[in-house]
């Protein structure tokens, strides 16, 4: 099985992170006028840095439009990054071309949110899952169908459904197909872009358990993008909180959920409905309006909604700096 070959040996101690992202930027130009001159840019991702180790899950949370999905798409190379450096397993990705880029793509896969538009309606499951093997010439052509069936079993699909088309499956099953497709190439990292947000709650749990099991079996690392804190808490080891294109807090899951440090993290946690009324955080936003990514506030982007905001926040942008307990926080006051 090629999948086992790419999985790291159990218990191997890795010191260098598998994936290291530094100051990643994705800016979209805004063009206007007859000559389509660039009049500004949407800074969707504006200097994001994090590291991801083998078999680790980093949760990436934030409101809609904060740039978390764009980060995932840029990492998988599906939209071009306009700045920053991505190092994957010791090699700079930006410089990769041709065969190296193909190798990188093979080891970095993505699972999409919408299980309906992520599968070609005109291809059977077998076609969909075979494609990665055909493209990268993995295994003898005659054995590829066997690999497809093995993968179907692994993600909990019945192998006798290999000839079926996407519309014959439920949302949860389709998401399993999407995960299987991402796994066919034996990747080291999978970007999960809101993989359960479109599913029923009971199905969400099944998919999350599947992802957890696959991580244990195959040692794959996840960049788990979601706006659902409960889901992130369940699956992640570390959590990064994004606001308007920047990470404002990055910490171990337990630390972050026990004691959020950045005011925005606190706001996010406070907005999650809890069953325990005593657990409610006594913290509300000053304003519900999220500033746009075209016209970001000066200094700290969150200051327009922050109860702690002072003059310093307007003039000076707080850097994301490590604190004594090991977490990274970008705030002047916390």
């Amino acid at each position: 099985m090629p999948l086992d070959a790419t999985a790291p040996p159990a218990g191997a101690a890795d010191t260098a992170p598998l994936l290291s992202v530094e100051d990643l930027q994705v800016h979209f130009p805004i063009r206007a006028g007859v000559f389509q001159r660039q009049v500004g840019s949407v800074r969707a991702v504006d200097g994001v840095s994090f590291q991801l180790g083998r078999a680790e899950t980093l949760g990436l949370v934030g409101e809609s439009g904060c740039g978390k999905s764009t980060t995932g798409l840029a990492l998988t190379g599906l939209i071009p990054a306009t700045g920053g450096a991505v190092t994957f397993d010791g090699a700079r990705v930006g410089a990769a071309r041709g065969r190296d880029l193909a190798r990188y793509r093979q080891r970095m896969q993505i699972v999409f949110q919408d299980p309906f538009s992520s599968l070609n309606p005109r291809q059977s499951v077998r076609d969909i899952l075979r494609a990665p093997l055909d493209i990268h010439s993995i295994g003898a052509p005659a054995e590829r169908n066997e690999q497809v069936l093995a993968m179907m079993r692994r993600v909990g699909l019945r192998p006798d459904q290999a000839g079926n088309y996407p519309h014959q499956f439920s949302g949860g099953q389709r998401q399993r197909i999407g995960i299987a497709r991402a796994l066919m190439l034996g990747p080291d990292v999978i970007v999960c872009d809101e993989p359960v947000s479109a599913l029923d709650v009971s199905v969400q749990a099944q998919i999350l358990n599947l992802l957890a099991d696959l991580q244990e079996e195959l040692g794959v690392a996840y960049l788990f993008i979601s706006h659902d804190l409960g889901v992130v808490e369940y699956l992640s080891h570390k959590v990064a909180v994004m606001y308007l294109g920047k990470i404002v807090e990055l910490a171990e899951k337990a630390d972050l959920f026990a004691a959020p440090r950045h005011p925005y993290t606190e706001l996010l946690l406070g907005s999650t409905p809890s069953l325990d009324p005593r657990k409610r955080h006594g913290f509300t936003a000053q304003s519900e309006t999220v500033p746009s990514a075209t016209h970001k506030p000066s200094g700290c982007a969150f200051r327009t909604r922050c109860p702690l905001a002072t003059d310093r926040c307007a003039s000076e942008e707080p850097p994301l700096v490590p604190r004594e307990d090991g977490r990274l926080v970008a705030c002047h006051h916390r």
Partner: protein
Amino acid sequence: MTDAAQPAPQAARARRRIRWPKALRSAPLIAGALISATIILLAIFAPFVATHDLTQMDMPNRFSGPSAEHWLGTDNFGRDLWSRLVYGARISVTIAIIAVTLSAIIGTVIGLVAGYFGGWVDLLLMRLTDIFLGFPPLVLVLAVVAVVGPGLLNVALSLVIVSWTEYARVVRSTTLSLREQNFVLAARAIGASPARILWREVLPNSLGPIIVLASLGLGTAIIWESALSFLGFGLPPPAPTWGWSLSYGTRFMREDPWMSIISGAAIMVTVLGFNLLGDGLRDLLDPRHQTRGKS
């Protein structure tokens, strides 16, 4: 006997569960398909269906009108109109199929490339399309035929020049929307080449509109071919084109209208058939009409 009878109720139940495909419940689609199929079969089997030699003249019997000997009567030279009609179908259908196939292939390739790559490639190809669209089509077709000369292939090629643009525009727009679909992104993520993505992901999902355009295009091509023959730019006589018969028949309208009526009716019925087929297919393949799960 009893053994053989045993599986019968099961088979009957299975048969009852078969849902009639939607195609079989649309009257215009069935009518269009039947007419189109009839015309194409007549064209293919013209030598077997024709009752007389094409050029065999029967001067005493010219303008005979329908009879047992000449089913649809005879023309000004006493030639059998039925035989000329079916051979005329052969010419019209052959030209239409060549023209539509080539137009669809050229237009689809250009549309796929323009829509998928975007940027200056798109700009260049679409301005090229606009240039072709800018000419009045009849003038363009006449000019091309005047230059390359009459002939089956030449007429077909001149029709390609005016009709490929439609495919290019439609396929470009479907490609534009498809390339943003997650399954195309996923194909890129697994390392599929642009050629593979266009062939395996985009094209199969664009086939619906292409098929509709093609069947409507067959009707249009037949009208064009007839118009060219009518104007004397089609296949030269004695080729039994419908357009020529229609045009030449007008000279004898007073004495005997059959020659014009028959060829005109043939053109009309054929075009109607292809258009009904195209409209029916459009309704059938339109994604807004598709219901999943339900019949």
